[in-house]
C-alpha cells in the first residue's frame, strides 16, 4: 500500500472510531476519558486448522476452570486429593466465603472466560493468564471488524473470513440459559455498570445496545420479596440475570463492602435463594488468580481426565523458597508480576529493565515474596504492523472470549493486542498498546 493511501486509510479509520465514539479512558492520565486506542490496519490471521486446535484448548480450559470453582465452593475434592494446596485456595483474597455451598444455575461460575494467549512457534501457544471475572475488550473485537469491513470490503470478498458479529446474540443466549430456577418466563437480562465514569463504560453501553438489554446502575435496582427489580417508567420489572461489570466487593453492601454505592443492598440473599443469576458469579475470581494459574493443567487432568491442549507458561512462585531463590538470581531474564495485578502495572520485564528497577523489585520481592510470581520472557510471535517507518514486526497477544452457559461457545476471533513500541512485550492498552482485527479463515 502506498504511503499516501495508507495515511489516508489510517485517518479514515480514526475518524470512524471517533464517530462511533470508541474511546478508552486510561487510569492515571488526569481525566481525559476520550482517548482513542490505536488501531492497526494489518489484520492478524489464523488458518482454520490452527484455530480449531486453539478452540478445543480454550473450551477445555473454560470447562476445567468452572469445574474447579464449583468444587472449591463445595466439597473441595481437588484440595483433598492434594493436587492444589488448600492455603492457595482458601486463604486467597479472591475466595468468597459468602458463596460457599452455592452451585449456580448449570454449574457455571464464570460465563465469559477471556484467555490471554501468546504464540511462540508454528504450533506452540502459551496461556498467559485466565480472566474469569469480567474480561473487557470484546467491543474492540467487534468494532475492529466493523471498521475493516467498511474500509476494505474487497478483502472480505476475496477471503473466507469467519464472521464474529453474532457475539452479542450468543452472549445474550448464554446469559438467558443460566436464568435462575425461580424464573418462569422469558428471562430478563440486564448489564450492571459502575456508571459512565468507568473506563469501560463505552463497552458496557455498546453491549447493552447490541444485545437489546437495559444498561443499569446499582441505583436502578432494588430488592423486595426475594426478587430483584428494576425501576422503570412503567413500575418495577423483575430482573432475572445480571451481567455485572462491577467487582465482587461492590455487588451488595450488606454482604461485601458496606461503603459500596455501586451495588444493590440485599442482592446476595436473592442470589442465594435462586431469585437472580449473577454473571460472572461472585467468587469466580479465585480461579484466575495468578497463583492458582499454575495449577490449571492440573485441574484439566483432575476434573476432565484429559491432557491439557494449551500450555501454561512455566511459572515460579516466589512464595516457594527454592523458586524465590531462582527468581532473585535470574531477575534480569524474567518477567515478574504481582499475583493480583492487572493492566500491565506493577510488573518487571527483566531484559528491558535497568539496574535500579531490578534492585527495586529485588527489594519488593524479598519483602513480600507471596505477592509475586515470575515467568521466563518468551520468544513472542510478531505480526506485521504499520509503524512510522513502514511495515515492521511487533509483538502481539490474543484474547478470545469463551462463553459458558448451557453450552460452551467461542466466536472465531478475539482481540489481538499489539505492542506498538519496537521490542516491547507489553500490549496493554493502558500502556500504549494498540489493537488489530483478528481473522480466522474458514476452510
Amino acid at each position, binding site marked *: 500500500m502506498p504511503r499516501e493511501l495508507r495515511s489516508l486509510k489510517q485517518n479514515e479509520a480514526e475518524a470512524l472510531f471517533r464517530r462511533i465514539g470508541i474511546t478508552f479512558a486510561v487510569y492515571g492520565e488526569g481525566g481525559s476519558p476520550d482517548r482513542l486506542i490505536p488501531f492497526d490496519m494489518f489484520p492478524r490471521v489464523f488458518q482454520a486448522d490452527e484455530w480449531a486446535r486453539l478452540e478445543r484448548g480454550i473450551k477445555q480450559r473454560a470447562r476445567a476452570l468452572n469445574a474447579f470453582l464449583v468444587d472449591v465452593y463445595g466439597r473441595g475434592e481437588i484440595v483433598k486429593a492434594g493436587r492444589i494446596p488448600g492455603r492457595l485456595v482458601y486463604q486467597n483474597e479472591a475466595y468468597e466465603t459468602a458463596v460457599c455451598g452455592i452451585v449456580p444455575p448449570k454449574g457455571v461460575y464464570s460465563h465469559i472466560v477471556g484467555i490471554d494467549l501468546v504464540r511462540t512457534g508454528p504450533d506452540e501457544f502459551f496461556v498467559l493468564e485466565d480472566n474469569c471475572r469480567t474480561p473487557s475488550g470484546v467491543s474492540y473485537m467487534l468494532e475492529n471488524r466493523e471498521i475493516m469491513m467498511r474500509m476494505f470490503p474487497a478483502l472480505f470478498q476475496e477471503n473466507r473470513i469467519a464472521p464474529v458479529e453474532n457475539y452479542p446474540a450468543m452472549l445474550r443466549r448464554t446469559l438467558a440459559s443460566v436464568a435462575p430456577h425461580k424464573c418462569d418466563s422469558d428471562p430478563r437480562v440486564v448489564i450492571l455498570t459502575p456508571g459512565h465514569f468507568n473506563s469501560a463504560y463505552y463497552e458496557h*453501553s455498546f453491549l447493552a445496545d447490541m444485545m437489546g438489554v*437495559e444498561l443499569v446502575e446499582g441505583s436502578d435496582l432494588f430488592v423486595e420479596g426475594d426478587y430483584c427489580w428494576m*425501576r*422503570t*417508567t412503567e413500575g418495577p420489572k423483575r430482573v432475572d440475570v445480571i451481567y455485572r461489570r462491577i467487582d465482587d466487593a461492590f455487588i451488595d453492601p450488606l454482604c461485601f463492602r458496606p461503603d459500596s454505592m455501586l451495588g444493590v443492598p440485599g442482592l446476595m440473599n436473592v442470589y442465594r435463594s435462586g431469585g437472580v443469576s449473577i454473571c460472572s458469579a461472585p467468587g469466580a475470581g479465585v480461579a484466575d488468580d495468578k497463583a492458582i494459574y499454575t495449577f490449571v493443567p492440573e485441574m484439566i487432568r483432575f476434573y476432565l481426565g484429559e491432557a491439557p491442549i494449551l500450555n501454561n507458561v512455566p511459572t515460579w512462585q516466589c512464595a516457594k523458597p527454592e523458586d524465590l531463590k531462582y527468581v532473585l538470581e535470574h531477575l534480569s531474564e524474567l518477567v515478574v508480576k504481582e499475583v493480583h495485578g492487572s493492566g500491565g502495572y506493577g510488573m518487571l520485564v527483566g531484559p528491558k529493565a535497568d539496574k535500579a528497577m531490578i534492585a527495586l523489585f529485588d527489594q519488593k520481592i524479598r519483602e513480600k515474596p507471596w505477592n509475586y510470581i515470575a515467568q521466563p520472557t518468551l520468544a513472542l510471535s510478531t505480526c506485521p504492523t504499520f509503524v512510522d517507518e513502514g511495515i515492521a514486526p511487533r509483538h502481539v497477544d490474543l484474547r478470545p472470549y469463551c462463553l459458558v452457559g448451557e453450552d460452551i461457545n467461542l466466536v472465531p476471533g478475539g482481540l489481538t493486542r499489539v505492542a506498538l513500541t519496537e521490542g516491547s512485550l507489553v500490549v496493554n492498552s493502558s500502556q500504549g498498546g494498540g489493537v488489530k482485527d483478528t481473522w480466522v479463515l474458514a476452510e
Partner: protein
Amino acid sequence: MLSRTAENLYWMARYIERAETNARLLEVGARNALIPNIGGGYRNEWESILHASGNANGFAEKYSDIVQRNIETFMFFDRDNANSVLSCIERARENGRIVRTALTTQVWDAINIAYQEVQEFGRQERSSLSLSDLTDWTLRTTALIRGAGLNTQMRNDGWDFTNIGFHLERADSTARMLDVKYFTLLPQISYVGSGLDNYQWRTLLRAMSSSRAFNWAYGGEISPAKIVDFLVLNRACPRSLISSVESANEHLDRLARAYGKSGPAQTRARALVGELHEMQVQDVFDEGLHEFLTRFMGQVMAVGGAAQTMYLSGDIR
C-alpha cells in the same frame, strides 16, 4: 424504559431549553439597556433580568456591580451559576452522554458539538465575543439539537419524556420573561402605554423571536392586552403558555395511552390546559399579571413534580 434513562432525557431537554431562555433573557436585557432609564421601573434594567432568571441571590453573592459585563459572565459563562448557558449545555451533554444509546447519532453530535464550542468560547478573549454573537449562537445551537431530534428520534416513550421536559421548561421560561415586565414597570403604572413601555414590550417580542408573528396576528399597534393574549392565550404562538402546556399535556397523554395508565401528572396538566382555554385576557389583568404568572409557574412545577413521582423516581408500584 428505565426510570433513570427517562429522567436523563427529561433533564437533557430542560437544560437545552433553559440555555435558550438565558440567551433570550440576555437579549431582552441588552436591548432594554439601550434606552435611558428615566426614573421609573425597577432600580436597573439588568436587575430585572436577574430576578426573572430566578438567580438574583446567586449573583449578589459573587459580584458587586450589576453591570452588563458581570451579568453576561454570570448568565453565560459562570459554572457556579447552575443555570448559566455554559452550565446548562454541560449538564445537557452529561445527561445525554449517560443515555447515549437512547439518542440518535445526529442528536448526540449536535449536543457534543455544542459542548465543544461552548468550551471554546470559554477559552477565547472575552472582548472578542459580543453579546449578540453569544445569544445568536445559543439560539442556533439549541434549534439544531431540537431539529435533529425531530428528524431522527424514535417516537417512543423516550421521545415523550424529552418533549415533556422541553415544554414544561418552555412554559416556565415564557412566564419568566413576561414577568420581566412586572419588575421593570412596577411601581410606576403610569408608564403603561407610554413610548417607553411599548419599546420594552417590543423587545420582549423580539427576544421571543415573535415580533413579526405578532404583527401578522394583531396588526401594528402594541398594547399590553394584545401581548398578554399573544404570549399567554394564543394557541398559534409556539412559545405561548397555552401552546407549551398543551404540548406537554399531549405527550403525557401519549404516555398514558402507551402504558395503559393515567395519573396525577395527566390530571394536573389537563386541568391547567382547561383553565387556560377558558381564560380571557381581562382575567389575567384582573388577577394581576405578576400574580397570575407566579401561580402559573407553581402549577407548571406541580405538573413536573407529578411526572417526576409517577415516572422518573422509579418508586411507583
